[in-house]
């Protein structure tokens, strides 16, 4: 973010569609070689941002600076940006090789050079034996790779990908995610990836920008977003979590002490410090809760009873009713063996300060 010259600088981008506000004063920098993911629920303005970057849409307000130049009003053909479309948009009347060469021809390259470059990119994506096929003769995964090859061929400064894996089945999807990530690493290209799938975002990105109602909710590494969500929205949107609502009791260094139905809990303070007595919500990830038979030596510990177990293969989801706190349920993941051992006796649940993020709403 502090890069003196980011590849892309989005300044105060606002887009209205009639009454709808698709983007609301969005400001964002993208560094060179970054794999940035735009994550958010349906209709939050992800595609709109991408389409403005690609040149298919003009913002109502704001600017897009690419490589130091203002490209806000440049048509798509003038930009050093290529896009992988959600439906791939392969040209049906052209072979794979012709599809890939299309952008090269329009750059005014010579025949021999086009051939060399398109062969190179096809073999890079392991498509060399499909060059003479038509898109209709390919599988979904192959089409996806051709779309990627076609967008990479003209050597764009920025590659835009709008939910490119949406049409693939779950198994292939996982495989392609790894592939895409490795291609990004090997090409050192800047990828701007859009998805509404949080798992996909966590797996692939260097950095995730969570968008909600056309505004940035949080911007950080996958780890930051997962373990230190800044808002309730992010905590709920990414992964599963326990949300504990209580009141601020006080502060200790960089920790917040909260009162949760009479229990004293300690967690990491959020940005901006809430005052004593204010309501506050804390988020604890399911896998951060530990089971003990005695009260553990941990900053946070509560006693409860396991009231439900769900077998999930390698692990087990436990539901714990906390003693003396009505309607308070905690959910936790434990490995399957531990889960099997836990009976109906009271158990102690403990977690660290680091595992509990305090949220501003």
């Amino acid at each position: 973010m502090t890069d003196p010259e980011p590849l892309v600088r989005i300044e105060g981008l606002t887009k209205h569609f009639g009454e709808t506000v698709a983007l609301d004063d969005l400001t964002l920098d993208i560094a060179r070689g970054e794999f940035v993911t735009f994550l958010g629920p349906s209709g939050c303005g992800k595609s709109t941002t991408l389409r403005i970057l690609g040149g298919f849409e003009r913002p109502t307000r704001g600017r897009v600076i690419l490589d130091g130049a203002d490209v806000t009003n440049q048509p798509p053909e003038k930009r050093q940006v290529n896009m992988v479309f959600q439906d791939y948009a392969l040209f049906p009347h052209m072979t794979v090789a012709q599809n890939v060469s299309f952008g090269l021809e329009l750059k005014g390259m010579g025949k021999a050079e086009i051939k060399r470059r398109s062969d190179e990119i096809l073999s890079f994506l392991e498509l060399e034996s499909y060059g003479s096929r038509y898109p209709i003769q390919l599988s979904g995964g192959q089409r996806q790779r051709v779309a990627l090859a076609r967008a990479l061929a003209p050597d764009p400064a920025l590659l835009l990908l709008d939910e490119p894996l949406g049409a693939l089945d779950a198994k292939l999807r996982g495989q392609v995610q790894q592939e895409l990530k490795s291609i990004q690493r090997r090409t050192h290209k800047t990828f701007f990836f859009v998805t509404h799938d949080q798992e996909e975002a966590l797996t692939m990105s260097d950095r995730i920008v969570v968008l909600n109602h056309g505004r940035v909710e949080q911007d950080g590494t996958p780890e930051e977003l997962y373990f230190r969500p800044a808002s309730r929205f992010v905590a709920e949107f990414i992964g599963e979590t326990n949300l504990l609502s209580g009141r601020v009791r006080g502060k200790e260094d960089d920790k917040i002490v909260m009162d949760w139905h009479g229990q004293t809990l300690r967690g990491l303070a959020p940005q901006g410090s809430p005052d004593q007595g204010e309501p506050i919500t804390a988020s604890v990830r399911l896998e951060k809760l530990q089971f003990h038979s005695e009260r553990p030596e941990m900053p946070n510990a509560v006693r409860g009873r396991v009231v439900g177990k769900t077998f999930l293969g390698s692990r087990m989801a436990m539901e714990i009713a906390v003693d003396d706190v009505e309607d308070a349920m905690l959910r936790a993941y434990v490995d399957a063996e531990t889960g099997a051992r836990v009976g109906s006796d009271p158990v102690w649940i403990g977690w660290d300060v680091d595992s509990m993020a305090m949220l501003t709403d």
Partner: protein
Amino acid sequence: MNDRPELFRGNRIFLACIYWAFVLYVFVPLILMVLMGFKDSRFIGFPIRSWTLEWYTGVFADTEVLSTFGYSIAIAVLSTLISILVGTWIAVLLEGRKFAGRGLTFGLTLLPALVPGIISAIAFRIYARWLGIEPGMGAIVWAHAVHNVPFVVLVVMARLSTLPKSQIEAARDLGADPLITFLRITLPYLVPAILGASIFCLLLSFDDFVRSFFLGGYEPTLPVMIFAMLRSGMSPEINAIATVALVLTAAIGLWAERFTRRMNKER
């Protein structure tokens, strides 16, 4: 279906009967016409005692008939080219665009196809005289082109509406300006529609009598010539000419059908 086999079967036989009755109704006159063209007698009717190719050799030897064929084909080709150009252009302008008066423009575009032939022929005649255009090939081509444009617009627009927007955007994204995008993406996508519309226009023009009659000069088109020949009574030559025209149009139609189907399969 298996629950009511009896009813279903009865239905099917009934439908089959209707179908074959329809086929007979359509084809018997054509078959009669073709047969009479090979009959070795000027008298039209059964029985046919002997066969001949005399009428055909006569027709093919007659330079006037041949030139009329050529004339009609030239008119069909020219008017089709014009309708395709104008029609495709209008379709591209109208499809997927919103502007004030789009509905009105669309309605006006379709009007020439809806006006009864005789009325539009008379109107054209008056208009042509007013403009000082001589009756003849130019006038006929013009009238046919105007009449056929709406069909081209409809067919091309229907095809255009199925072109995914992302195709256009992908081309632009890869560096094509709007013109190159049209030539390299939109146009190839429209080829089957344009081809189908062309065949339709060719046949409409080749077949037209009313406009050609009202706007023609001294040289008749094929239908007008046949009409003229009819005035001196039905003759085997007419059957021969009509059979040749029938074979020609049927061949073009079948080829176009096969071609478009193959093209659709490829994509």
